């Protein structure tokens, strides 16, 4: 069966209809609303599953993609025509994203039925979740930048709503405005990038953009902004990448994500860890061929990624809030993905996106499971502070187990998924560094970040689950965790997929037969950087499923497609990669070891570090002062005074003197003109110009009289006087 818009669109529409229906019934029957949401996402999961298996298990060749469009609206006139097309684009990457998003979202929906059950706005939460899932799936299926942007912004809205879910809290209002505005800075640039690309390519669709890139449309094109002729490829890539910086919380727009933890924990799992933030990286991967054009772009992306990866990891070292550690680890991991994009590790970045989505969703759900159990009977609040935890292992075995699996994954312990993907990114960074010494900088940042990641994640685990309970009263009130399907099953399923074997192995036998090379893993076969030359002869009119089997050329190794290396060099690269892998393993275990020595053996005192590097410690606690700089500096000292000043000028100066001042001017003018009236009235030609000046004075005189009746009479008089004057 062919994929058509009507069949595929149900993936997006099921959750969307759930949102529409639930919006009306949520108050009356919240349980039904929850059921509808879960059923809808499960339906999407099944539909996505079909696509996933078709694409991944060898029904189609690796380069197969489906592209279907329909007209949204069209305009024409003045020899110009504008057709706004919308459509779906499915390739291997889309198929995997769909499967991951629906799968993770479904599990989070299930978990939410446990977590949100007692909340007064139980149903409303699912309304937003359905809308969010629908928007994310729409984004994944988008074939063009405009619909990508539409769903991108819709997710921003859902994020805004879910962060502000507890709207009684003043902080929720601060956090959601911060999240929305920060990401919107990126979005504005993203829109600019879309415009720049549109006017070069004449289309919004990815395939047309690829075709334009391969035909060299971007090579010498320039765009003039503020009088400077700038290379279009650079401006467009930077602008689009700004979208990623905003949405994926990269340096320097990372400030919103930690605050986004104000929302309910399951929404943190879905939006601020697993999917929405990954959309930024997904965009970067889709636009990767564009980034390659200008030599400045990839090193820049790698640098941003490296700085984010290390910077967020360092801040995570000093967090005491359970969710804050996870929030910073999310930023850090997103930094690795962006680093991966920057070093051209296309499939590794995408793999890290997938693996991270799974283990981070699991980590957040597990955090939710912990926080939900920790109920302070004095304040009636859930406890998130790690200093009040400790020893939780004994009370919640399943959560503890799932969380350790994910910790191993994120820390990069061999045989876990995070190792497979992160090691590839770092390995590729090393390879790039061999070619271009500049890359040593981001690569080093990445390696140091990996050490810190292992450390702070284990620190979190040790502080929360091991050792002695630090708040005895709190600890005693925790109910022993009993297996319940909606609490533990999602955790355990996600934990199962933190195993590296799913991603590194050759589970999909059929694909491997086709590949006929034992060196290549299934991910490398399926996720290949868009070969723009394949799209060169792509007929714009001939949109439909295109099977371009003839042009398939599988990469000999995963590197040659990226860097165009020969066999010999590829061998060399392989050895570099082995070094990278060994380094990664050593680093991961060092991090774990340090955490162990500090928090379990307590041989090393963390306090010593705090005292010795107290300036750094304060800087980390204040998140490197970025929030202070933005809020206190730019907004409170810059933007708001400027606004107040402008508003004051507008009403207090301009309106008061330049506009109302005419009253005084005309009062004088009127006195004078009354005096000269008899002399001048005859000399003024009875044409429109003269008459209007007179009319103006007449009217302004009535202004002083202040009698309303005058105005009516004046209109009638003026109108009739014109008619007469024309006679």
């Amino acid at each position, binding site marked *: 069966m062919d994929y058509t818009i009507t069949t595929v669109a149900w993936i997006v529409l099921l959750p969307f209809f759930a949102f529409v229906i639930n919006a009306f019934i949520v108050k009356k029957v919240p349980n039904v609303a929850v059921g509808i949401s879960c059923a809808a996402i499960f339906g999407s999961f099944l539909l996505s599953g079909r696509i996933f298996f078709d694409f991944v298990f060898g029904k189609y060749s690796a380069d197969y993609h489906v592209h279907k469009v329909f007209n949204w*609206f*069209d*305009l*024409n*006139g*003045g*020899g*110009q*025509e*504008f057709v706004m097309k919308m459509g779906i684009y499915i390739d291997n990457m889309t198929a995997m994203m769909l499967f991951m998003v629906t799968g993770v979202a479904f599990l989070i929906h299930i978990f939410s039925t446990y977590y949100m059950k007692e909340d007064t706005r139980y149903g409303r939460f699912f309304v937003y979740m359905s809308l969010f899932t629908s928007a994310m799936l729409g984004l994944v299926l988008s074939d063009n930048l405009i619909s990508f*942007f*539409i769903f*991108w*912004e*819709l997710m921003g*809205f859902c994020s*805004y709503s879910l962060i*502000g879910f507890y*709207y*009684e*809290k*003043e902080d*929720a*209002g*601060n956090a959601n*405005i911060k999240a*929305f*505005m920060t990401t*919107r800075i990126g979005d*504005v640039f993203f*829109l*600019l990038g879309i*415009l720049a690309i549109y*006017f070069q390519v004449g289309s919004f669709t990815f395939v047309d953009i690829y075709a334009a890139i391969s035909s060299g449309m971007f090579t010498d094109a320039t765009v003039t*902004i*503020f*009088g400077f002729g700038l290379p279009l490829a650079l401006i467009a890539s930077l602008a689009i990448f700004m979208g990623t910086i905003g949405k994926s919380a990269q340096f320097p727009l990372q400030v919103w994500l930690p605050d986004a933890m104000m929302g309910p924990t399951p929404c943190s799992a879905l939006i601020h860890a697993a999917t929405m933030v990954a959309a930024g990286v997904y965009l970067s991967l889709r636009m990767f061929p564009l980034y390659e054009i200008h030599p400045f772009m990839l090193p820049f992306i790698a640098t941003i990624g490296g700085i984010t990866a290390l910077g967020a990891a360092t801040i995570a070292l000093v967090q005491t809030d359970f969710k804050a550690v996870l929030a910073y680890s999310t930023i850090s991991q997103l930094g690795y993905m962006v680093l991966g994009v920057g070093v051209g590790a296309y499939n590794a970045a995408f793999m890290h996106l997938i693996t991270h989505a799974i283990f981070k969703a699991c980590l957040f759900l597990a955090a939710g499971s912990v926080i939900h159990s920790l109920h302070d009977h004095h304040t009636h609040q859930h406890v998130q502070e790690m200093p009040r935890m400790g020893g939780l292992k004994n009370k919640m075995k399943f959560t503890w187990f799932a969380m350790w699996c994910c910790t191993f994954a994120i820390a990069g312990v061999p045989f876990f998924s995070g190792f497979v993907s992160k090691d590839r990114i770092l390995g590729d960074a090393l390879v790039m560094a061999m070619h271009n010494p500049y890359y040593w900088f981001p690569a080093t940042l990445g390696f140091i970040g990996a050490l810190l990641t292992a450390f702070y994640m284990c620190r979190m685990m040790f502080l929360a689950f091991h050792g002695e309970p630090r708040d005895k009263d709190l600890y005693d009130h925790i109910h022993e965790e009993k297996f319940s399907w909606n609490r533990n099953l999602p955790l355990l399923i996600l934990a199962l997929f933190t195993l590296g074997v799913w991603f590194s192995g050759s589970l999909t036998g059929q694909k491997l037969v086709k590949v006929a090379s034992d060196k290549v893993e299934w991910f490398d076969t399926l996720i290949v950087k868009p070969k723009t030359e394949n799209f060169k002869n792509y007929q714009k009119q001939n949109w439909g499923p295109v099977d371009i089997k003839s042009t398939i050329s599988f990469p000999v190794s995963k590197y040659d497609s990226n860097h165009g290396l020969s066999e010999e060099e590829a061998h060399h690269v392989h050895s570099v990669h082995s070094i990278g892998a060994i380094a990664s393993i050593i680093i991961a275990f060092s991090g774990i070891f340090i955490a162990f020595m500090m928090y379990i053996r307590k041989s090393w005192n963390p306090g010593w570090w705090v005292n010795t590097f107290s300036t750094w410690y304060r800087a980390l606690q204040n998140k490197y002062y970025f929030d202070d700089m933005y809020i206190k500096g730019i907004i409170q000292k810059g933007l*708001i005074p400027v606004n*107040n000043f*402008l*508003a*004051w000028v*507008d*009403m207090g100066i301009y309106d008061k003197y330049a*506009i*109302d001042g005419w009253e005084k001017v005309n009062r004088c003018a009127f006195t004078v003109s009354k005096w000269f009236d008899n002399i001048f009235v005859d000399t003024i030609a009875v*044409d*429109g*110009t003269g008459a*209007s000046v007179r009319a*103006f004075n007449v*009217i302004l005189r009535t*202004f002083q009289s*202040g009698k*309303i009746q005058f*105005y009516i009479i004046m*209109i009638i008089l003026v*109108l009739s006087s014109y008619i007469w004057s*024309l*006679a």
Partner: protein
Amino acid sequence: MHGTSTLLNWILWTPFIGVVGVILLPYLFSKDKQDNVVRWWSLLNTIGSMILAVVLYMKFDTSVPGMQEQFAVNIAWIKQFNIFYSLGVDGISLPMIMLAALLFFLCILSSWTITKSVKGYFALFLMLQGTVYGVFLALDFFLFYVYWEVMLLPMFFLIGIWGGENREYAAVKFFLYTFFGSILMLVGIIALYYASGKGVDSFNILALSGGKFIDNQVHMFGTVWSFSKVFFWAMFIGFAIKVPVFPFHTWLPHAHVQAPTAVSVILAGVLLKMGTYGFLRIAYPIFPQASVQFADWIAVLGLINVIYGALCAMAQTDVKKLVAYSSVSHMGFVMLGLAAMTVHGMNGAVLQMFNHGTSTAMMFLLIGILYERSHHRWIVRPDGTKGFGGLYTQLPKYSIVFIIAMFASMGLPGLSGFISEALIFLGIYQKYTTITVLALFGLLIGAAYLLWMFKRMFFGEVIEECKSYTDMNAREIFYMAPLCVAVIVFGIYPTPVLDIMKSSVGQLVSLLAQFQ
């Protein structure tokens, strides 16, 4: 063009029949019933008006680019001066007629709580509706001007009598500002009358169109000036004051803040569009070459509107003033679209006129609903205390509608504002890249002031004085619902509106393209 159709006559005169009814009908009833008779009569009248607008929409042929012959009305009015009573409708005026019909109906519902001389209020309100229709339907320049001017009369009294504390100042200011512009327009009308030879067509807007006055000259201040340039600017200022374009915008915050809710809605929703409609119907078609020549100015002024309006809005502590400045900002986008003169830009501009009409009407209606409960509009009072707080908890339904209105207003994709803004940006990017880059920041600030306002009013604990507020009642929900549906439906599926306008706008773009 000799019309026999009566539909446009009915549309135009129904509100005036309503006015007569409002004046006469109460005499048939006892004193205590009179107010309600007036209200119900006005409501029926606007419903009738809406039905007629729908009939017009059904009969409208979207494939015809120009004025639709089937609706034409053309009767000699003042024969000596070749002034005709001629009406017509095309794809640019129809969306405005539909918008006006809807908004007036909703405003009558929202004015149900008016108690101060009900009869006068509704009579003036219906009269306002009639004159608005007149402006959008008139094809005779003189007739256009008459409606344009007469419209000031009900507006003046509606603001001056039913307005807030400083109503008289605001009313006079509104009146004088607009009148100043009108006079410049009148000069232009008279000049055109002479330039076109005082013939049968000399007040006919359609006959004057098409760039006929390129070579004409005008003698002024001892020099020879290009006729089309001089009178383009005369028309420009006349319409710009209505839009309002910076630096002619300062009447708007005063008028909005002082006007009663329904009048604010009409002011922002319909009357501002008369300014941009003037560009599309008169300034552009009659002086296309000057329009093309001065497009850069229009673009720059549009940009100033967008940024300046948004920055000023951010500083406001009165929520109605904030939305008033946001109108300045959003109408700037329309001006940018007009400056683009491309097919995307112009369609985007007309669509933005329509979409801003619905979204800003929602904002003003919502502020009116709140004002009826609070009797103040301070986000932050002058003494620094909170005017509102925790409204989300106190008024959940109201908050949901407010969120829809707010996000529609800031152009969230999926709601109506986005498509028109995106089209406008597509339109101007190629010609004015730098302006596009700067205008995009208008989107950013636009989101900032709305969200900041929302945060300060709706989040947090419910403050003491807000605890007595009641959520929206059935009547209020009833009149908000159509607008909610409109902003959502046209956000997802803009085709119905675009279909109406696109051939007419396309024709105008083609005309302008000849002079590029």
